[in-house]
C-alpha cells in the first residue's frame, strides 16, 4: 500500500507549460550558433614544414650527443686502463652504454615510484 501511495504521489507531478517565448528563444540561440563562424582548422600545411624541421633538428641533436658520448667513452676507456676498479661503467663501448642506460632507467623508475607514493599518501 505504501509503495502504491508513493507511486501515486510521485506520478501525479504538477506539469508546467513552457513560456510562450520559449521556442523563439531556443531558435534564436540555434540561429546564433549556426551563424557563428566555424572554428579555424589547424594550419597543417604551414605547420608541417616546421614539424619536419623540428624532427631533423632533434635527430641531429641525438646524433651529436651520441658522438659526444662515444668520444667520452674512448676517454673513459683510456681512464679504465689507468684505473681498472671503475669496472663496467667506465669500461667504454656498448657494455658501458648499456650499464649507464640501465642505471638511468632504474633511477627514473625509483623516482617515479617515490613521487607516486608521496602523492598517494597525501590523497
Amino acid at each position: 500500500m505504501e509503495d502504491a501511495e508513493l507511486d501515486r504521489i510521485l506520478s501525479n507531478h504538477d506539469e508546467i507549460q513552457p513560456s510562450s517565448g520559449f521556442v523563439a528563444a531556443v531558435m534564436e540561440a540555434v540561429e546564433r550558433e549556426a551563424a557563428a563562424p566555424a572554428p579555424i582548422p589547424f594550419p597543417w600545411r604551414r605547420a608541417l614544414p616546421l614539424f619536419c624541421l623540428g624532427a631533423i633538428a632533434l635527430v641531429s641533436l641525438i646524433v651529436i650527443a651520441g658522438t659526444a658520448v662515444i668520444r667520452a667513452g674512448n676517454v673513459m676507456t683510456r681512464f679504465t686502463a689507468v684505473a681498472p676498479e671503475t669496472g663496467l661503467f667506465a669500461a667504454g663501448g656498448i657494455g658501458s652504454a648499456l650499464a649507464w642506460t640501465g642505471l638511468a632507467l632504474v633511477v627514473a623508475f625509483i623516482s617515479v615510484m617515490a613521487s607516486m607514493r608521496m602523492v598517494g599518501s597525501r590523497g
Partner: protein
Amino acid sequence: MSASDDQAAVERVLAGDISAFEQIVRRWQTPLVNLAYRFCRDRGRAEEMAQEAFLRAYRGLGQWRKDAAFSTWLFALATNFYRSELRRIPAGTVSIDDVREPADPRTLDGGLEEQDRDEAVRRAVLGLPVRYREALILFYFHEMDVPAAARSLGLPEGTVKARLFRGRELLRNKLPQVLAMPSLKEA
C-alpha cells in the same frame, strides 16, 4: 508529429535547413522543460536548462544513430546535461535529514491536506542523495518504465531498480507518518 517526422526534421536540419529544428523544439519543449523542472523545481531555471539541452541537441544532431528513437537520444542527452548542471549548481534544496514531517499530521480539520502531503514527499525526493534522486525522478518521469529510465540515465536496469528500491526505502524511513496517512480519497 511522429517518430518519422522527427527523423525527417533531423535530416532537413543536417542538410542545412535550420528552421526544421523548430518542429523538434515544438514537439519536445514540454517534456524537456518538465524533466528539468523535476530536477530543480524552479521554472525559470528549468527553461534555461531545457534551452541549453536543445542547443546541445542541435550541435550533436549528427551523432544521433538511428538505431534508437530520437526521443531516447534526446532524453539521454538532456538527462546527462541536467545531471551535470545540477551537480555544478545544486538546486535550492535541503538534505533529506532536514526535511521535517509536520509536528502533528492529524490536525483539527481531520489531517494534513493531501496536496501538502504530496508536496512534502516531492520535496523529500529532492533531498535524497543524488543517485537515488535521479533514479526516482527519471522513473516517474517515464511513467514508471524502468528500461526507459535506465536508457536516459545510461545505467543497467538492475542498477536503476536497486536505486529505486533504496530511494523508496529512504523516503519511507524519513516520512513514515506522512506515507502511512490515508489519502483524502480513501478516508
